[in-house]
């Protein structure tokens, strides 16, 4: 150990050292969020198996659903899908990935809580918002990669958007926006339940039925009317339909729906979820220590 005991500590202030920060400005808050976000992303980069597992699961869905159900379903699809279940499925899986992936936000926060990392952050003169902003921000980047990889595999198997690249890109961004909104929901959930085991069920229990009772995998037209009433109006369906409209053309929407209207609704859902859950998450974060 090289600690030279004769000399005064380099770390210690003599008398009153001026603090490095006065007040925390909004710019500081952005800087802090970037620092935390970078830290969270480093974990993904250093443990690439995390990213691999996150991608393998949707790719498995992609392959299984395409080859197992594809043949049976293709006849029931609107012509905009160009007779390919794969074309129909990829936009849906973008939302499925967002929904299941959002659990990672909760897990990441719970892990930091358990390891005392959140305590350390809370004892630092950093912006209170940064831990959550850095977490959801990093998860957005992770989702961008996972969804991108999934689409790439889809393209290798034969997925083709039927509209234009800008429209496809708009759909991709809309999916990311929705994933981000769900991250805030799961951040709240994680901060409320606070153990990894509880997070597993708190994420899986609501997300699983939400994904299936939607247009993510299949058109809702053949569902019983009570289920359909729910499925048609829940956000996963609204956003999935928008993605299909953007990537496959207006004809991919259920009869009577207009693309612009669906996209607007999707935007409202995303904004609404963020406006409700971001403050809830921040409040839960503030209370987490008491």
């Amino acid at each position, binding site marked *: *150990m*090289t*600690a*030279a*005991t004769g*000399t*005064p*500590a*380099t*770390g*210690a*202030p*003599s*008398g*009153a*050292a001026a*603090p*490095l*920060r006065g*007040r*925390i400005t909004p710019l*500081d808050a952005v*800087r*802090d969020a970037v*620092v935390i976000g970078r*830290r969270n992303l*480093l*974990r993904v980069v*250093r*443990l690439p198996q995390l990213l691999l597992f996150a991608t393998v699961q949707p790719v498995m869905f992609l392959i299984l659903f395409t080859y197992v159900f594809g043949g049976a379903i293709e006849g029931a699809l609107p012509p905009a899908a160009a007779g390919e279940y794969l074309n129909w499925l990829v936009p849906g899986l973008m939302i499925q990935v967002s929904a299941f992936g959002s659990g990672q936000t909760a897990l990441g926060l719970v892990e930091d809580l358990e*390891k*005392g*990392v959140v*305590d*350390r*952050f*809370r*004892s*630092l*003169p*950093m912006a209170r918002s*940064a831990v959550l902003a850095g977490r959801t921000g990093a998860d957005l980047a992770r989702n961008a990669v996972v969804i991108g990889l999934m689409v790439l595999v889809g393209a290798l198997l034969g997925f083709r958007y039927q509209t234009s690249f800008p429209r496809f890109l708009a759909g991709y961004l809309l999916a990311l926006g929705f994933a981000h909104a769900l991250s805030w929901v799961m951040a709240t959930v994680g901060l409320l339940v606070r153990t990894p085991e509880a997070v597993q069920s708190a994420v899986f229990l609501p997300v699983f039925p939400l994904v299936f009772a939607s247009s993510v995998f299949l058109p809702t037209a053949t569902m019983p009317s009570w289920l359909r009433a729910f499925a048609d109006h829940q956000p996963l369906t609204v956003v999935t339909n928008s993605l299909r409209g953007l990537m496959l053309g207006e004809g991919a929407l259920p009869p009577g729906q207009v693309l612009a209207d669906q996209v607007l609704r999707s935007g409202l859902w995303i904004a609404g979820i963020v406006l409700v859950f971001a403050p809830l998450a921040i409040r839960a974060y503030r209370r987490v*220590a*008491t």
Partner: protein
Amino acid sequence: MTDPIVRVRDVVHDFGRTRALDGVSLDVPGGIVYGLLGPNGAGKTTLIRVLSTLLRPAAGHVEVAGVDVIADPTAARMRIGLAGQFAAVDAYLTGRENVEMVGRLYGLRGAAARARAAEVLDRFGLGDAADRRVATYSGGMRRRLDLAASLVGRPQVMFLDEPTTGIDPRSRMDVWELVEDLVRGGTTVLLTTQYLEEADRLADRIAVIDVGRIVSEGTADELKARVASTVLEVHVPEADRARAAELLTGVAGEAPATDTAGTALRVPARDGGATLVAAVRALSDAGITPDDVALHRPTLDDAFLALTGDPATHAPTPTGRTRRGRRGRRATEEVAP
């Protein structure tokens, strides 16, 4: 005395039905190591969490470096460093990345954050390991890294919750040296510990905390003196014991106690060496030659055990020094003179 750098007044905190802090008040003078000593569940961590802005107490007033911690936690955070009971470092980052990140969150930027991280890592003997992932670090290295990270913002007051729990004796001594070094540089260190030896060696002042209350406060010597005086222990042959007890009563002004084995006679030695000389002279005048005579200074263990809870519930510690000290005070029975 100058103004205390940490001032705690009547702090109360409950977790549900558990009263973790029950009206704690203390003053920590600047520039010293202040030890919080207490058994498991005494409330040490809770108090550290209150002081380091992690926990808002139900009642009371807390000031650190002139800042009201409850009213203005952000200003307090700029002046403190915290190393919690468990090292809060990221295993998948390198040591350097960990320290740099904390530096940035204190407001250091770019080159300044890098330079400061390098400086602190070197100082903590982690220069060579700085670019390895923390996952490859030993427990002692992690602990040092945790301390390094809490120091990177040049805090005026450092809070260390059990800084040497779970590390080997060598690493423990390293941490002690680092703490002493910090204090030489002007930082105030408030640490909790369950190791009496650590408090004795490191802390300039000690507060003993038990079930949420400060039960005693002072220097280690003051605490020892408060609960136990120096004890004179005399071993005499069986045949002389009754007579020796009588003589010792005359010298000490109080009947001697004997340990359970019945071989030693003990009296408080209020005048230390003078008591010993007087006792030996009295015995020798009566023609009794003691087999052994010794003075035992009370240890911090004696103070700790006397101050915290029912002594019968405390298991004896395995060191001979401790047992002897305790026997002097406790496991004794009166011997009829």
